[in-house]
């Protein structure tokens, strides 16, 4: 019988006037588990983490963390958790060590204990050589590692990671994943992380909670979630959905090998038994009904398909919105009008530039947004790649994507399998 590290019941948080960031949200995380909250920005991930880490109050519900009620025993909760927020919060004009010493003091640790812990953590995160340098000289990956090291100084039982790899390049993301997994395995640390990267949820976590519109849609292991999608996933994109396309859909639906269907604008998602063999049959139906197919891709179900099943939209298409930050209610919103989709559709190789423009629009004075959005764009490419849109002409960035893919398939899985045995 394992105990629950975090238990959230009926959590509702309303930002004035009537923006329900999360609504009657339930979530349970067992001790020693890595749970990923997967969802687009604005889904309520950050609010959930903020509520559980005593950073924001909430309107309804009960949140127990490490056996304490966050409302009545916030001090005990604070002592048992470590939090790494999206904004790093470390002081750039202090050295890594000074940052950690201060953090230790904030948790009322003794001097000797702080110093011993710093040595330990610096070695663990391979920061020994730079620990006495100013943080302003650190790379993005080092800052993230220092961030996590700071959050662990008081040996918390539970670690909250809000978008831990946002803004990191692929190499650093990979390193960070390994650290996070090691922390969980070696020290039994319970980890609740938020992400909108499919790979992060898929590879890193024991449990994935898909969150959208302020509600948990489904919670299960990544494998179980993917297995819940029957068959292979075929995505057909039409230039235009007219009579012929409707006819094609009508016929296709009647085929015995089609298990599930769903429309997303002019994209048709089909879940097909033995997809490889039946794709030809589908093409024949399309030719017969005169449907013009712009693009067809076949893949094993990914978490994105699961996301699509439970939310009706692909996580890759959901509008980016940084509405979670608490100060946003005062700050007023920038133009959150653009959709990633259009950026992506316009020109693949321009996705990075597009990302920059977009981030300026979304949050003209939150600079951190910048890097994050760029990575978001790259991520999109990777995900598309994985879904098998091989025919797309991707130039430089696709190399990264395929690298990521290769690495993902071989090395990471090896590590993971090895560890689990």
């Amino acid at each position: 019988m394992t105990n629950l590290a975090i238990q959230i019941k009926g959590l509702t948080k309303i930002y004035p006037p009537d923006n329900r960031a999360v609504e009657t949200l339930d979530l349970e995380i067992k001790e020693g588990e890595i749970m990923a909250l997967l969802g687009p920005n604005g889904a309520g991930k950050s609010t959930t983490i903020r509520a559980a880490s005593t950073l924001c109050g909430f309107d309804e519900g009960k949140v127990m963390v490490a056996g304490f009620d966050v409302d009545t025993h916030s001090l005990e909760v604070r002592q048992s958790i470590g939090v790494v927020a999206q904004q790093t919060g470390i002081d750039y004009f202090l050295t890594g060590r000074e940052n950690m010493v201060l953090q230790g003091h904030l948790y009322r640790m003794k001097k000797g204990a702080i110093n011993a812990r710093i040595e330990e953590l610096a070695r663990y995160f391979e920061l020994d050589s730079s620990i006495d340098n100013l943080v302003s000289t650190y790379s993005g990956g080092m800052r993230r590692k220092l961030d996590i090291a700071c959050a662990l100084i008081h040996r918390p039982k539970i670690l909250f990671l809000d978008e831990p790899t946002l803004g990191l390049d692929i190499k650093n993301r990979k390193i960070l994943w390994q650290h996070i997994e090691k922390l969980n395995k070696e020290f039994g640390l319970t980890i609740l992380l938020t992400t909108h990267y499919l790979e992060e949820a898929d590879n890193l976590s024991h449990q994935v909670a898909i969150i959208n519109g302020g509600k948990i849609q489904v919670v299960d292991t990544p494998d179980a979630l993917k297995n819940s999608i029957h068959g292979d996933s075929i995505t057909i994109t039409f230039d235009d959905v007219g009579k012929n396309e409707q006819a094609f859909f009508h016929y296709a639906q009647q085929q015995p090998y089609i298990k599930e269907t769903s429309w997303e604008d002019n994209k048709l998602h089909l879940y097909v038994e033995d997809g490889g063999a039946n794709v030809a049959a589908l093409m024949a139906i399309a030719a017969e009904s005169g449907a013009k197919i712009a693009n067809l891709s076949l893949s094993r179900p990914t978490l994105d398909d699961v996301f699509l099943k439970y939310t009706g939209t692909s996580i890759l298409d959901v509008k980016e919105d940084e509405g979670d930050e608490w100060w946003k209610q005062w700050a007023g919103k920038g133009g959150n009008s653009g959709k990633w989709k259009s950026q992506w559709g316009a020109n693949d190789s321009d996705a990075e530039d597009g990302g920059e423009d977009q981030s300026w629009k979304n949050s003209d004075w939150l600079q951190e947004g910048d890097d994050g959005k760029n990575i978001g764009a790259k991520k999109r490419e990777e995900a598309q790649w994985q879904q098998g849109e091989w025919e797309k002409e991707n130039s430089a960035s696709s190399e990264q994507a395929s690298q990521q893919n290769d690495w993902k398939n071989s090395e990471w899985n090896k590590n993971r399998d090895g560890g689990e045995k």
Partner: protein
Amino acid sequence: MLADTWHLFNKYMRITMRMPMWTLFTLIQPLIWLLIFGQLFKEFVQLGDEDYMAFMVPGILVMTVLFGSSWSGVSLLREITAGTVDKMLVSPVSRVAIVLSRVLHSSAQVIAQAFIMLLVAWALGATLNMNPLYLLMAMLIVFLLGIGFAALSNGFAIVLQREEPLVMIGNLMTLPLIFFSSALVPEQFMPDWIQLISAVNPISYAVDAIRAVLSTTPDMAVFGKGLLVLTLFSGASLAWAVTAFNALRD
């Protein structure tokens, strides 16, 4: 709470010490005032036997304090955006200590600045009472005024949540308030309505108190009145800032 305040205060001091130029930069404006306006106004203002420089120095000291401490809130907003405040808030650290350490840091900074200004004025030949005891008393007023305005700035930062209006209020708090006080012009030269504002302006009391102890004939009654008013003012500002900060948890 005191230990928390000390550790955080230490952090801010350490950061300030790494950028000593910044502390000096804020001195440029008061320095210009001292050098240029000291010369410019000298002929206008007839103070009998008294030297206008000596009259003006307490006003310039107060100006230094206001210029230095009214920006404290801007860096609080930076810390909020950077996640530093969140990081403190998820720790068990005392919430009062977060505000207190910022305000103390700010007033420590303005004491150093005011002291430099004082030395410059003295070097320029202003007739000042440089008795260490009286200097200490003057610095006490500087300290309290710094606390008060840094706390106001932090409070406004939390209430307004934006840098732009905060800067505007910061400007509004400094220059007009200085002119509505006895900082640069003796009270008897003011029109009645300005005298009225000056009478409720804590800056006037600070200037008068500093002037009272830096004068070659110290006046303890005026100093005592200033000390009392500024203690009340800084206490109230601080209480307001702490209350605003505690309400920050949304």
